[in-house]
């Protein structure tokens, strides 16, 4: 199809053609076109079906406020629903489809809804689908969802990538129309750091859409020249295709830059969009104004659009929606549409102006005092019916109608922090109120200064004023001459005549009648009006409809518009893809991973990894022939207990504690005593929370009088460090103590098993005696290994075996694990993972995270006597609370199944034999369980009421949810080596 409605002029590149398809039909446009302008050029007015009634719809606007022309762009995983044809830039190969229609846009079977419109009025869901209640979820909702709706999603992962970023400036200018450009020139020439953001791909705002002159050149040329000057200023960042979506605290604004949406695919490595967080010292809103329609019967036919949009299509894109058009307006500004279209050679049938004293501006028929009362045309406008001032009816043939009821300043951003707009009677519109975001001022049409001259001048003045505020001198230079027409508007919201539907919100199919119904049913507050009728909801957020809705509500309620009020504007200003909110943090990049020093080596061993916090830890190391994880784990446990095993324990938190008062500090942090710990010794320590509940456990080794190394559990490394910093800085600033994390600085390996010492002796330099006598259980010290590398050695045991932990600087961790395994070959040394670690600690009855679960006390853990009464420490006093010291308090004990074939399951609750299974009879619960290859059965540890005195008793472990019911014998939690002979060997 040729571009039948293409006009001369415009800002498109006629030298090149751009091929695209809409609903499978091939068309051609030009670079510079939007999808909407290219479709109009090709004579396509019908672009979509409405949300509820499936009415045929075309474009209403030429910008981001578009409610109607929503399409699905691209295909496959790239398919994006609800994209506005008015902002989608044309590119070669663009594939667009209409949505919410079946089987086709021209014949939509769902348009049957339109016949039942009397039933589908506002609130019909709430009235109709009340009964029976069970039908809502299963029947009504799915059916309604299918019938009513917008686009569809691909259900495939988004193939594009998105960035987030941060920008800083002295002055953020939102909108690059006349006000924004003159503000940017003023601030840019003054040397201020300026960001000028505009949602369009060509800056200039209405200067590109109008035929107005600025100085001695066309407005669009002045805009282009200004942009060229700004582009040469290194202190100005001009961001096109960038929508400022929200105003947040402290001068921070959110903006989405559409980097690649105008390209077939993003360039390699480039994001589709970027979410910018802009920290501005001052901000200037130059977002212009949005034209408002007038409601009349059947005012939604394709071809009926805002008068300003019609001018924009003609002037910027050289397109007319039809060869013969008409204009319906109550403002002088609206008449310019006729002037501009006539200048482009389009026939203008008439200008219909309800004002009886309407001036003759365009060289065409003027119907003063007349109103459009109805329209005709099934899939596009063919005729308008006009009630003349004389009272007679007249039918006018036209394919498009430009409608203007005046302009609404675009105040959205000024209200994002709950500021309310103020009503200005002289322009019959809301303007920004006094309580906008701190540091934000407004200039140009957004402030109600509608003329070009006023916008140019206000932009410069407001920019200079904003900069003066922050100590930057800028001069508001004289502005070029420009149109300075006064605003002449007498409010006219809807045509009263006719019983048919007059559309207010075309996106949600809300009519004047719906507002009347809401009023009649007493949903009269604007917030109720919105929810009851859905006025102003969905992707356009009522940019073209809210004003009309509340004006009609004001009329009905006999109130003024300011008394009726407005709903709240919230971010985002225009729809934002979820992808850009996530940025790069998705999939495997959702968060960073932490790798242990032995990671590379463990990978070579085929280790199976598990995520622990952000750490990747080896869970077990499968050997050839092992087909099930338990085989590997059992082997690792048995080999360690029999000879020696090595495990990477770098992930445990390590906190360096230094200072004259380091011992005093630890004595207050831990509930047990640390003041007298000898240099070269390590002690197990338990930290309590302020409320007396156990917080974390670990060890602290004393390397010098004024130097300790505290270890924490992997999971609590950060929270314990934070707790200690809080105590240091806020509780006891008088203590001389300094803390710093060294978790990652040292690669630390547990070497456990009867041959641990023999193995270590092969790597520890001979001048260090690590015999049992010289380096007994709980010793620690700084040593060297492998011929002089500094290292630390701790004789501590989690497994219950003779065990050490050896630490070397992390860069040598890889070499160290390789050396240990090589040296251990003669002993059959094995690496073991977190599963074997867990099995051995359960066999030994050591508490871990499952037991230190935020509800348990030292007493529960069997460590009640550790809480020193001889000193004060965090939590010690409150651990004495009566409720925490009941005689039948939970106590940590072990469990073995009576029938060895049964399994102990963590989470199971315990019941005394013979009692009914209910919460009242609950005796405790299992916290950790595993298969013990040493005992040849499943074992567990857990908390049992008065557990210490119930050893030998048989209890039932139940889980009513899973049907578990197993008899367990209560035993000591120390299944292996209860006397601790092995670890002291």
């Amino acid at each position: 199809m040729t571009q039948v409605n293409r006009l001369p002029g415009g800002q498109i590149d006629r030298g090149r053609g751009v091929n695209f398809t809409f609903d499978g039909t091939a068309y051609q446009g030009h670079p510079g076109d939007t999808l909407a302008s290219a479709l109009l050029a090709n004579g396509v007015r019908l672009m979509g079906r409405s949300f509820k009634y499936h009415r045929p719809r075309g474009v209403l606007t030429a910008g981001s406020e578009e409610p109607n022309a929503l399409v699905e762009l691209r295909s496959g995983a790239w398919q994006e629903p609800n994209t506005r044809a008015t902002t989608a830039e044309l590119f070669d190969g663009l594939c667009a489809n209409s949505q919410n229609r079946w089987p086709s846009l021209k014949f939509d079977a769902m348009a049957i809804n339109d016949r039942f419109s009397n039933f589908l009025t506002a609130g019909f869901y709430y009235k109709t689908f009340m009964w029976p209640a069970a039908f809502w979820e299963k029947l009504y909702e799915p059916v309604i969802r299918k019938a009513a709706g917008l686009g569809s999603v691909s259900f495939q992962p988004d193939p594009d990538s998105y960035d987030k970023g941060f920008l800083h400036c002295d002055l953020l200018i939102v909108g690059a129309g006349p006000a924004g450009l003159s503000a940017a020139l003023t601030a840019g020439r003054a040397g201020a750091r300026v960001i000028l953001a505009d949602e369009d791909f060509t800056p200039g705002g209405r200067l590109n859409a109008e035929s107005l002159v600025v100085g001695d050149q066309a407005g669009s040329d002045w805009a282009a020249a200004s942009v060229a000057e700004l582009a040469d200023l290194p202190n100005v960042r001009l961001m096109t295709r960038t929508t400022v979506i929200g105003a947040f605290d402290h001068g921070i604004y959110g903006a989405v830059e559409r980097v690649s949406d105008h390209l077939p695919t993003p360039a390699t490595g480039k994001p589709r969009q970027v979410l910018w967080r802009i920290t501005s010292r001052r901000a200037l809103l130059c977002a212009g104004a949005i034209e408002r329609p007038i409601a009349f019967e059947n005012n939604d036919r394709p071809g009926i659009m805002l008068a300003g949009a019609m001018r924009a299509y003609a002037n910027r894109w050289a397109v007319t929606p039809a060869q013969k058009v008409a204009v319906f307006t109550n403002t002088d500004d609206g008449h310019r549409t006729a002037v501009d279209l006539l200048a482009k050679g389009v026939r203008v049938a008439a200008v219909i102006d309800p004002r009886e004293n309407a001036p003759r501006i365009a060289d065409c028929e003027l119907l003063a005092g007349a109103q459009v009362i109805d329209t005709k045309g099934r899939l596009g406008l063919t005729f308008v019916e006009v009630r003349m001032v004389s009272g007679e009816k007249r039918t006018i043939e036209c394919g498009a109608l430009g409608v203007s009821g005046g302009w609404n300043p675009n105040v959205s951003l000024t209200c994002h922090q709950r500021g309310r707009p103020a009503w200005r009677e002289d322009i019959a519109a809301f303007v920004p109120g006094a309580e906008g975001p701190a540091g934000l001022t407004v200039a140009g049409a957004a402030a109600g200064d509608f003329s070009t001259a006023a916008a140019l001048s206000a932009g410069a003045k407001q920019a200079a004023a904003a900069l003066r505020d922050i100590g930057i001198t800028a001069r508001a230079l004289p502005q070029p001459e420009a149109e300075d027409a006064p605003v002449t508007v007498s409010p006219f919201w809807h045509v009263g005549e006719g019983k048919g539907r007059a559309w207010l919100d075309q996106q949600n199919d809300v009519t004047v009648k719906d507002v009347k119904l809401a009023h009649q049913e007493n949903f009269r507050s604007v917030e109720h009006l919105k929810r009851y009728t859905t006025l102003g909801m969905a992707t356009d957020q009522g940019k073209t409809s809210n004003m009309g809705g509340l004006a009609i509500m004001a009329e009905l309620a006999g109130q003024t518009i300011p008394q009726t009020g407005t709903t709240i504007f919230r971010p985002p200003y225009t729809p934002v893809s979820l992808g850009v909110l996530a940025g790069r943090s998705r999939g495997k990049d959702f968060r960073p991973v932490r790798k242990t020093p032995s990671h590379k080596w463990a990978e070579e061993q085929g280790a199976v990894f598990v995520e622990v916090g952000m750490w990747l830890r080896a869970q077990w190391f499968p050997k050839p022939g092992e087909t099930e994880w338990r085989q590997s784990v059992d082997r690792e446990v048995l080999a360690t207990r029999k000879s020696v095993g090595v495990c990477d324990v770098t992930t445990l938190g390590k906190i360096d504690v230094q200072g004259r008062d380091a011992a005093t500090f630890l004595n207050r942090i831990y509930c047990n005593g640390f003041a007298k710990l000898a240099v070269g010794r390590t002690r197990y320590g338990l930290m309590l929370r302020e409320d007396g509940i156990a917080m974390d456990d670990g060890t602290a080794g004393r390397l010098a009088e004024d130097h300790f190394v505290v270890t924490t559990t992997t999971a609590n490394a950060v929270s314990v460090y934070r707790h200690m910093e809080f105590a240091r800085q806020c509780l006891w600033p008088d203590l001389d103590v300094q803390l710093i994390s060294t978790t990652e600085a040292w690669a630390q390996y547990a070497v456990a098993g009867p041959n641990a010492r023999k193995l270590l002796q092969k790597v520890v330099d001979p001048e260090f005696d690590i015999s049992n006598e010289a380096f007994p259980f709980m010793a620690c010290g700084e040593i060297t290994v492998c011929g002089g590398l500094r290292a630390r050695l701790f004789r501590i045991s989690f497994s219950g075996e003779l065990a050490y932990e050896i630490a070397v600087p992390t860069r040598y961790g890889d070499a160290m694990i390789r050396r240990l395994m090589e040296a251990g070959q003669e002993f059959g040394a094995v690496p073991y993972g977190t599963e074997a670690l867990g099995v051995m600690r359960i066999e030994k009855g050591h508490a871990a995270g499952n037991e230190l679960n935020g509800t348990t006390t030292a007493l529960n853990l069997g460590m009640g006597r550790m809480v020193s009464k001889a000193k004060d420490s965090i939590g010690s006093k409150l651990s004495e609370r009566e409720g925490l010291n009941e005689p039948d308090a939970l106590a940590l004990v072990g469990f073995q199944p009576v029938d060895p074939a049964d399994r102990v399951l963590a989470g199971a609750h315990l019941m005394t034999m013979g009692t009914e299974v209910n919460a009242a009879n609950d005796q405790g619960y299992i916290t950790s369980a595993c298969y013990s290859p040493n005992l040849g059965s499943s074992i567990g540890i857990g908390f049992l009421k008065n557990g210490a005195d119930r050893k030998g008793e048989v209890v039932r472990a139940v889980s009513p949810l899973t049907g578990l019911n197993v008899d367990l014998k209560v035993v000591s939690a120390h299944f292996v080596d209860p006397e601790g002979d092995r670890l002291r060997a």
Partner: protein
Amino acid sequence: MHDLVAITPLGGDKPRVDRVGPVTLSERPDWALASVASRLGREQDCRDGLKAALGQGVPDVGRLAAGDPLSAFWTGPEQWMVEAPHASHEDLAARLKAALGDAASVTEQTDGWCRFDMEGDGVVAVLERLCNVDVAAQDSGAATRASIEHLGCFLVCRAARRSLSVIGPRSSAGSLHHALLTAMRSAL
């Protein structure tokens, strides 16, 4: 001399170098780090000792005192991180402790961190996509803490708008490097 071979934070035998457009990203395991925190009541002694070691005054809040062989940047009230070439100063912490005695707590930090240097025109554009620091406004010698890729990092400006170091937690070197390189490809 011990016979253990070090690997870099990214797990390689040699430091990794990546170039995208005008910007070079280099893994720098050749720097040793030690933290210095003054003891309570010994602030002046610590500053004097550190000044002697650095050969210049201790850096103020948010600053780097660049020197040869020792540099230092501020990390908190009366706290600094000292940098020195690893080849000559692997024992940096021990040397500083010997110099400062009980006026300061000194802790070896060398392998707690991974350092990536980014150099070339365009580093500002890359860092814009990584952290909320106004890198464009930083002068040479600015040093700050920033969250990059959810990781607490030091950002040290070596030459304004041309050269900087990102010093982040070593265990996440791979994730940090991935984020830096991705941002370079995206921004440049």
